[in-house]
């Protein structure tokens, strides 16, 4: 139970917020966006933090999911859930096809390959305008229904995304104590050593890549319905970078690190709008300073400090 205490704490906060601050813009609107980011960051952390890889193209999977839903529901009138399924199948096929060749690469080469993949998908979304609507995007995406409930208010989306977020976090926490999780940590430590221990490293790496891509695509589909509008801007190189930043900002390898990073980066622009013209500059400066002064990540550094203090306190009491 202790292992999951953070999870239950988060669930409690999530459930309490709408009652503590009813109809609050920062809870319902920014909060839902933050939860979307949390799901994406936790999913990316499986690949980056657990397995020690890097992806600068995860926005592509988010885009594939979102556009599958957008195109299939608006142009072909497909049921949103079927469209979501189609997005997952497409993502599965794409990630399966690229996973083996891409994951043979390491470090900067892997960064370049995933970056290239992301840019190709983005260019396709912009250029294939007969299907995707081009740079203007697609609007009028019908709302989605969850059983008898039609999801079309901010609060309904808050609960939906909250549920998916908790499920993703739980999955991530459980994965870390499973056989696969241990295999991933071993690969993170040393791929060669992992191989000599009998881990089929190409297989495990491509599995975690595909899992991460599927979660990202699923979130993309929901995002399309939540916004009822998609445009290529949301799925470009910068969004990939933002996702990586969320993971690294909180602290790589830690699920709650990804949560903290994602929440922070979702609220930061809201607060920076008061600086108007200085917004971009300050955003860059904050990014740099956190990484310079806390290279292991904000959450990991703070949690490490707190647990050291606690341990020291316990030590003193014992004496």
């Amino acid at each position, binding site marked *: 139970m202790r292992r999951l205490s953070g999870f239950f704490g988060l669930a409690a906060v999530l459930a309490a917020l709408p009652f503590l601050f009813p109809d609050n813009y920062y809870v319902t609107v920014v909060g839902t966006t933050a939860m979307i980011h949390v799901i994406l960051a936790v999913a990316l952390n499986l690949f980056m933090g657990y397995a020690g890889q890097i992806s600068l193209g995860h926005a592509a999977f988010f885009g594939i999911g979102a556009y599958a839903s957008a195109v299939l529901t608006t142009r072909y009138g497909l049921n949103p859930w079927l469209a979501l399924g189609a997005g997952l199948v497409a993502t599965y096929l794409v990630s399966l096809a690229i996973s083996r060749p891409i994951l043979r690469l390491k470090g900067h080469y892997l960064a370049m390959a995933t970056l290239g993949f992301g840019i190709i998908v983005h260019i396709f979304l912009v250029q294939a305008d007969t299907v995707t609507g081009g740079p203007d995007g697609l609007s009028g995406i019908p709302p989605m229904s969850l059983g008898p409930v039609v999801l079309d208010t901010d609060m309904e989306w808050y609960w939906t995304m909250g549920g998916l977020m908790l499920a993703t976090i739980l999955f991530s926490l459980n994965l870390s104590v499973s056989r696969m999780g241990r295999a991933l940590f071993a690969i993170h430590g040393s791929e060669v050593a992992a191989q000599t221990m009998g881990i089929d490293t190409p297989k495990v790496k491509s599995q975690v890549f595909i899992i991460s891509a599927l979660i990202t695509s699923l979130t993309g589909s929901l995002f399309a319905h939540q916004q009822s509008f998609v445009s290529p801007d949301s799925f470009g190189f910068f969004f990939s970078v933002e996702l990586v930043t969320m993971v*690294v900002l909180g602290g790589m390898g830690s699920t709650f690190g990804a949560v903290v990073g994602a929440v922070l980066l979702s609220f930061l622009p809201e607060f920076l709008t008061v600086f108007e013209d200085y917004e971009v500059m300050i955003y*860059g400066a904050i990014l740099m300073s956190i990484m310079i002064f806390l290279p292991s990540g904000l959450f990991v550094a703070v949690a490490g400090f707190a647990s050291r203090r606690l341990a020291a306190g316990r030590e003193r009491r014992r004496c």
Partner: protein
Amino acid sequence: MDLLLQFLLTGLTTGSIYALVGLGFAIIYNASDVVNFAQGEFLMIGAMSAIFLHRLGLPLPLAIAAAVAISIAVGLLLEKLAIEPARNASVVSLIIITIGASIFFRGVALLIWGKEIYGLPHFSGEEPIRLLGATVLPQSIWVMAGTVVLVGAVKYFFDHTLAGKAMRACSHNKRAAALLGIDVKKIMLLSYGLSAGLGGLAGVLVAPITYMTYDAGVMLGLKGFCAAILGGMGSSMGAVAGGLVLGVIEALGTGFISSGYKDAISFFIILLILFFRPSGLFGKSGGERV
């Protein structure tokens, strides 16, 4: 045939710029193992500074010299204030730092120059020169010739000067270099200055052809990264060759396939090369050290 020559000339012009960005990438990567995602911003800073100093009434050569000095200063500051304090950080953290730096530079540029598109006057007229049935802008010749001179100068610097040799020593093994009395910190600083200066000059050379905005550095930087990877990360001359190849591929893709997909084509080629020859066209494929 004329068409092919035309595409080749266009490709070599853009390729020269990619080559210079790639070379800048390689210099910093060799000296400090950092992939500098702010490399494209050096071009933007150089070009924008030159444009504005020229507008303020400075003669073009003076404006260019001052602009290059500004980008060098920015490069030195980047190393001193952001890279050096974080030298023990992981590769990914360093990538985020340089991405943060590039966002910061764009933010500053946005603040100073706004979102408008600016151009620099062509160095020597805009009358196209006919060449074997193709036409070429005088500025393209400036770009290509400038690249040849700069690459030659960098090569000379690495092969024949003490500082250049020290920089190469650092790229092989920093500790050994330090033991031989090389001031590694100074060499790092020098590599950022050199790389930023090259970037600034490249920006000035290309500004009359492509125009500049505060965010023009992003794609240029990514293409330079492509060039460096294509040539084999860590090989300076490989990066130059990679840039030229990339420029030509892109021009042919634009001409014969589609201009909308030109960036997609170059990244697709990069992916293919990474899949089949992960060490790049000219890089040495070595075993992994455990």
